[in-house]
């Protein structure tokens, strides 16, 4: 009975470990493993993360996705991928600066691009050096605001300096755990996580092979 229970639990643990290893590996390399959209005219194959509508012409729609920025001139019926000077992977936010007609594109890794309407000569805005991962952004009258998981940053349009307002004085343990899981806590953790995940996959599969080989041997001996 106990041996049977051990085997059942082992099989459950095997499935969970395999699933966790594969998904962990995927999350650590989401940029590389997410298939790029095959078409430059449809944003729907990529994950849409944000949307902006032109303040003066509502037929113009912009979509930020995991694989770039798309522009529609017919209220979203058709889209064209905008050519950007940098690969716009993982767009966190796309918005018009309220009060002005400049478009902002903010990427998760802190790359910020700003331009007026076509022909889009983009200007790079430097993100604050301590903002690890941008999660949201907006702008009003030239005052760009960014939110990371730790603070809100506000760009002074006159001095071009970032003012930081931390959310809490206590470090959130969940953030550290998340960073450990996704390999962002420190350099090369991704590689360590990868090695661990690949080892777990190999161990799970070889364990399963050994388990069935043992079973076959036992059946032969009988």
């Amino acid at each position, binding site marked *: 009975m106990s041996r049977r229970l051990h085997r059942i639990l082992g099989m459950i643990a095997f499935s969970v470990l395999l699933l966790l290893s594969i998904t962990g590996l995927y999350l650590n390399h989401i940029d590389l493993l997410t298939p790029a959209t095959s078409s430059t005219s449809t944003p729907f194959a990529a994950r849409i993360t944000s949307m902006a509508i032109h303040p003066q012409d509502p037929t113009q729609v912009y979509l930020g996705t995991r694989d770039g920025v798309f522009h529609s001139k017919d209220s979203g019926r058709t889209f064209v991928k905008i050519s950007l*000077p940098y*690969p716009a992977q993982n767009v966190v936010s796309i918005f018009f600066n309220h009060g002005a007609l400049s478009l902002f594109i903010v990427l998760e890794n802190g*790359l910020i691009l700003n331009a007026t309407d076509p*022909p889009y*000569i983009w*200007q790079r805005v430097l993100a604050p050096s301590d903002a690890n991962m941008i999660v949201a952004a907006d702008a009003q009258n030239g005052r760009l605001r960014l939110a990371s998981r730790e603070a809100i940053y506000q760009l002074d349009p006159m001095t071009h300096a970032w003012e930081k307002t931390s959310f809490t004085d206590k470090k959130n343990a969940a953030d550290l755990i998340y*960073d450990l899981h996704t390999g962002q*806590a*420190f350099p090369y953790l*991704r590689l360590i996580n990868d090695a661990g995940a690949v080892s777990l996959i190999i161990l799970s599969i070889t364990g399963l092979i050994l388990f069935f080989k043992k079973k076959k041997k036992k059946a032969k001996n009988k």
Partner: protein
Amino acid sequence: MENMTIAVRVFFLFFLILPFIRCYPLLAAETVYLTPQQALEIAFPDSTSLTPRTITLSADLKKKIERRIGVTMPEDRFTIYTSRIVTKPDGYALILDEIGKHLPITFMVAFTPQKQVKSVQVLVYRERVGSNVRQPNFLKQFISKSSQDSLSVGNDINGITGATMSSWAISAGVKKAAVIVEELDNPL
């Protein structure tokens, strides 16, 4: 049992040093890999003369280049090094600063007389993370490319995991250099 105690100690030590490791990427570490002279000698080993020439772009030309590369340029003055073997043109090179994540990366792009990329070399890297953009496997992807190529990560250039923005910056910088060199009437 003793092994177990060692494992527990290592585990706790890891969590003790974790906050310091988290600050590691924020610390800047300027590393000079090559001087301009060394980089030029590597790019043009047979050169008999290397002449620097400072070029100031006119407002119109600057705008034209910005439109082609799709991004504004903070600088309008560049020094172009011209290499010759006796009197025969051997190529030319541009040294650029391109912002990686937060700090500029200084690198040199060398061209053949046909305006194709001959080599790319990183001279100074300032950020703690991402210095592996110096890897020959990454830099050799630019060889033989010209301003007509996309020169962007995800298209004709493969980026580097762990140096995402640095590889984007180098690619954008090479494109900028290629366009500048093409737009200048007579760079040699």
